[in-house]
């Protein structure tokens, strides 16, 4: 992080409008500057930090695959799973990663439909992040079945055993939801990339780059006869991705909600999971974009305004998540169902200091996980009520890291604390991860980072054509003077005519 920025974004005293619009691209940059800035990252020499980080990430990813190989060869017994905890880190990690994957589609689809123009600076990287997070997520349900060579049983294909999958099972819904989500996200991302790949193709100086970018640009000519279908396709993809993004995490939550386990059997799960996914996803977007913007000097494109609005979304969704936590607890209390009450109070909430004494119950075995989740997810984002906090990148980064950790704990709390004590006390037990559990999970970060680093090295990480489209001079009725050349400071009055 290069510097702390607290930019004045108050109203301009000389402006005629009571609340002037904050420009989406600062310093009145020209289109050529935007092209040069973003493509320059891809075309320039590979930085040392990139090589170092990439090597570390690849090593971690290899450890992940080594652990998976060991697990497949030996059996799921190498994980800490046992009776009664039959789902633990595998499904926690799955839900964690797929949740992170939700911010990208939200930014590209929902914010597109609601005409939030600020999304243009961050949507490309967020969509890439979505894809890579879904790749990491997809690993776990695949391998947790144990006998991975039987995983094709999930697919409804005619086979010699004449056995078909149970279409009424949420686990099968998951297969369809996650694979649809990955396919649609990939297409959405690629469609968005086509014009920018054409930019890279037209600028490429060496033959290999020209061929490679040219191949994937599909011969894009930017003709308006193409743009009109392209824009329509983008709009339709946004329109169908919006219910899709809401459905995917709802379906993930059905894995739990349609069971009869106290703590899982809850109607609030779908909206609660979706809000949590958006919350965790935005935190991960900021976690990746703040360093990228500092390293590559993209402060004019990813402005304090962008960080500010994302912080507000984190605050909103974090508060919704907090409300859901409280409502779950209230429902358990109000239902007078002893098993529900047991899960929430005696398995999760009763910490040694306050609640166990207040309710006169024994200390909950996982109280630390529950309160870590509460503190990191609900309390830490509340600092974003203050503008100063939203404009201090160190505070923003720290809160995002808290949310990243907190959201993992949320899934751990939901999954493990609900099943570690079965209905009979004879079937009670604690879960402890093995080294295979830990390194598989740590390794997925390596996989995620390797893919993300490859992305920022070889593809434009900001949607060039979309950012150009939100410049003031992109408006065909723009009357003002052509903006000064790059490097000069804008006159706010000029930019806003």
């Amino acid at each position: 992080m290069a510097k702390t920025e607290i930019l004045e974004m108050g109203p301009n005293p000389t402006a005629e409008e009571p609340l002037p619009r904050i420009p989406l691209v600062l310093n009145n940059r020209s289109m050529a500057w935007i092209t040069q800035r973003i493509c320059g990252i891809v075309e320039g020499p590979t930085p040392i930090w990139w090589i170092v980080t990439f090597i570390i990430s690849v090593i971690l990813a290899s450890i992940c695959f080594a652990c998976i190989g060991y697990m497949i060869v030996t059996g799921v017994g190498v994980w800490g799973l046992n009776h009664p905890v039959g789902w633990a880190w595998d499904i926690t990690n799955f839900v964690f990663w797929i949740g992170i994957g939700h911010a990208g589609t939200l930014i590209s689809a929902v914010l597109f439909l609601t005409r939030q123009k600020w999304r243009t600076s961050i949507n490309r990287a967020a969509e890439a992040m979505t894809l890579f997070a879904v790749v990491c997520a997809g690993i776990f349900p695949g391998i947790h079945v144990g006998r991975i060579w039987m995983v094709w049983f999930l697919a409804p294909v005619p086979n010699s055993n004449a056995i078909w999958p149970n279409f009424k099972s949420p686990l099968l819904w998951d297969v369809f939801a996650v694979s649809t989500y990955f396919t649609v996200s990939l297409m959405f991302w690629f469609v968005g990339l086509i014009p920018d790949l054409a930019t890279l193709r037209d600028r490429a100086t060496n033959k290999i780059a020209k061929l490679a970018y040219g191949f994937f640009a599909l011969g894009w000519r930017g003709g308006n006869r193409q743009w009109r279908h392209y824009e329509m396709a983008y709009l339709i993809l946004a329109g169908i991705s919006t219910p899709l993004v809401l459905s995917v995490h709802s379906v993930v939550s059905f894995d739990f909600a349609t069971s009869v386990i106290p703590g899982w059997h809850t109607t609030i799960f779908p909206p609660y999971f979706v809000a949590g996914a958006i919350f965790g996803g935005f935190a991960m977007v900021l976690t990746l974009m703040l360093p990228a913007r500092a390293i590559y000097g993209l402060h004019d494109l990813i402005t304090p305004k962008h960080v500010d609005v994302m912080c507000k979304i984190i605050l909103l969704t974090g508060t919704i998540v907090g409300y859901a936590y409280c409502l779950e607890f209230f429902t358990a209390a109000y239902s007078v169902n002893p098993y529900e009450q047991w899960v929430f109070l005696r398995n999760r909430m009763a910490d040694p200091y306050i609640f166990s004494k207040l309710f006169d119950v024994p200390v909950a075995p996982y109280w630390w996980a529950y309160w870590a989740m509460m503190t990191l997810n609900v309390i830490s984002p509340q600092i974003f009520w203050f503008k100063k906090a939203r404009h201090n990148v160190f505070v923003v980064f720290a809160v995002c890291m808290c949310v990243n950790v907190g959201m993992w704990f949320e899934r751990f709390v939901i999954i493990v604390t609900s099943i570690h004590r079965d209905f009979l006390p004879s079937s009670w037990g604690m879960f402890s991860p093995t080294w295979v559990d830990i390194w598989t999970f740590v390794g997925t970060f390596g996989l995620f980072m390797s893919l993300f680093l490859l992305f920022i090295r070889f593809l434009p990480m900001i949607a060039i054509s979309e950012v150009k489209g939100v410049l003031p001079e992109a408006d065909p009725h723009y009357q003002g003077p052509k903006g000064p050349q790059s490097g000069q400071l804008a006159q706010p009055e000029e930019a806003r005519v």
Partner: protein
Amino acid sequence: MVAERRKVYGLGARFESASEIYQAAKKVRDKGFRRWDVHTPFPVHGMDAAMGLKHSVLGKFVFFGGIIGFITAVCLQFIPSAIIYPLIVQGKPFGIYSIPAYFPIIFELTILFSALTTVGGMFALNGLPRWHHPVFNWDGFGRFSDDAFIVVIEAADPKFTELGTREFLEELGAKEITLIHE
């Protein structure tokens, strides 16, 4: 260029801003040209009307794509669950009361088929992929993806004459006009 007897594809004219090309497009449209296009770094708002183009028909394709997805999902689930391999889970046979359990997959496949039709339909309507096109023969054309706004009028247009169209483009205030060969 004099020695070359290659066929003329059309005339290309470069403009420098979205507002210039927007005004120019309206005049090209009013002049009655049919085979021409405007190449811009980003979709210029209102350009469809300025060029006299109709609304994209893509939406109609996608509607049918969605319906096919819906029917596929219904058949994929109902045929095995009701006929080939009836499975009673938790005392719930296939029937009107267990149908809601089939909705998630119906929903997902409707979305998936719609999305595939959207992208496939967009490629088909735009003629993509097409890696070679005469406009790329103009070396300056590549600037369209940076900050140039380009009008290309094809020689195949009945109103096209090499001199007349060049004069017309000059009147519109083009910064650079080039003959593009096939």
